[in-house]
């Protein structure tokens, strides 16, 4: 079967320094795939290449079989790819409600949008309590729930998550991990997850790619990678 998303030999440069060199990855329908690796290994660059925030220099990115590299970010959303950006990036001076409505910017049916808001509030009851609060005044974990909810408001087929555990209280990391699994299962959304918290990423995903300096160093089944000596040594900090 044709993969939902396919990178073929992709190269991406920041000025003269490469961030991705010959990267080939695949995400299939219904999967959660994790990208793990150290800071600067190129994980986030993969997401930026998909969303069109960064142009690739070589290679192809295909979504549903058709090429999407070179497409503008606002078009990518309309194709069904939603991004939860790094460092959350809520609209700080807007209410939770307005943030969610911005997530549904590409949609027009008001009744369906209201249904999506209800769905997000059921999934993240905390947002219900904060519904009329300014997003910038909430805690890191609450903001993370908001941006995940905001991305779901576009009804994506593919959800891109950039470091959702970063700057979130340890207790809430578990909650967010659980909601990623639940979203993948209930909403029939495929997920591409970028995480420095490799252990969390490998637990919630079915497959994973480990990146080192812009290249895929290892890939495979997440459960097997979690048990792999090399992965343990390189990405999980030795012991479990």
């Amino acid at each position, binding site marked *: 079967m044709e993969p939902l998303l396919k990178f073929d030999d992709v190269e991406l440069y920041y000025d003269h320094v490469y961030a991705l060199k010959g990267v080939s990855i695949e995400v299939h329908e219904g999967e959660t795939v994790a990208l793990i690796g150290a800071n600067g290994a190129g994980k986030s660059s993969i997401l930026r290449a998909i*969303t069109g*925030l960064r142009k690739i220099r070589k290679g192809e990115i295909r979504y549903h079989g058709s090429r999407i590299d070179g497409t*503008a*970010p*606002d078009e990518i*959303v*309309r194709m069904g790819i*939603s*991004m939860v*950006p790094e460092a959350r*990036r*809520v*609209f*700080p*001076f*807007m209410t939770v409600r*307005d943030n969610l*409505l*911005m*997530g549904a*910017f*590409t949609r027009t049916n008001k009744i369906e949008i209201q249904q999506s808001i209800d769905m997000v509030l059921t999934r993240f009851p905390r947002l219900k309590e904060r519904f009329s609060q300014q997003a910038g005044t909430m805690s890191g974990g609450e903001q993370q729930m908001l941006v995940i909810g*905001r991305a779901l408001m*576009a009804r994506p087929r593919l959800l891109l998550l950039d470091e959702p555990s970063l700057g979130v209280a340890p207790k809430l990391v578990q909650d967010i991990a659980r909601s990623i699994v639940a979203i993948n299962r209930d909403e029939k959304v495929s997920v591409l997850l970028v995480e420095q918290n490799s252990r969390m990423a490998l637990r919630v995903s079915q497959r994973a790619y480990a990146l080192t300096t812009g290249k895929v160093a290892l890939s495979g089944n997440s459960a097997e990678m979690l048990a792999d000596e090399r992965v343990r040594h390189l990405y999980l900090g030795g012991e479990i």
Partner: protein
Amino acid sequence: MEQVIANGLYLGAQYALIALGLTLIFALMNVLNFAHGQMYVLGGFVTYSIYGQLKLPFVIALICSGVTLAIVGALMEKFLFRTVIRRSKREESTMLLAAATAFFLDAVVLLLFGEKQRGVPKIISGVFVSDRVILPYDRILVGVVAIVMIATFMLFMQYSKPGRAMRALAQDRIAAQLMGVKVERYSMIGFALGAMLAGIVGGLLVSITGVNSGIGGPISIKAFLMVMIGGAGVVGGAIAGGFILGMMESVGLTVLRAYGDITYLVIFALLMIFLSIRPHGLMGKPWG
């Protein structure tokens, strides 16, 4: 005293509307539109031509002022500011461009309409007289129209989909883009809207103070004053700044009359002290 407050409110409503347009453009594009006063002047001359010379109804003249400036603003964004912003990362480039468009508009207005002070017939005659306040009806009408426009603008920004998109764009450009907002389209809409507000105030005020081709620069400076007082890029700040400046001018003209024409000297001195204490103005945050 009541007279001074009434004058201040009337002036403040006009000023707030001018400052709103300037702050909208700044919030969306990070461009200080030096040509804002010139847009005001152009709006004034459009109303002068249509209402004063062609004798068409004032409302139609006002709409024409708004539409003309919206088109001018949209074209300026699309062909001038967008291309410069795309090629240059430095803020001075857009400031220089804005200053250039100000001189250009000055020259265009001078060529088309000449250097004479122009006025139009009163839109309504008569004066409201009570024990303590004397205010011509046309000033009351113009003040009310300005306040209604401010309210409409605020409601539009707060509750409409394009308004929400522009607020999002002002708060986080990249996040807004990831939501599917077409940055270029909404920058153009915002610029057109800001220019339109300037043009409408110009049209409104031509019926009271008249217009001449030389007042663009001073109006721009007043608009900057208001935006600095309130905090750049904040809607509430622009409105507060407008009313504060209107009130200061009204009070100054009464209280300082005995000392000669020093109202603006005092206002500038006060602003320097104020800004050295609060450099971000009253509400220094990007949009509220």
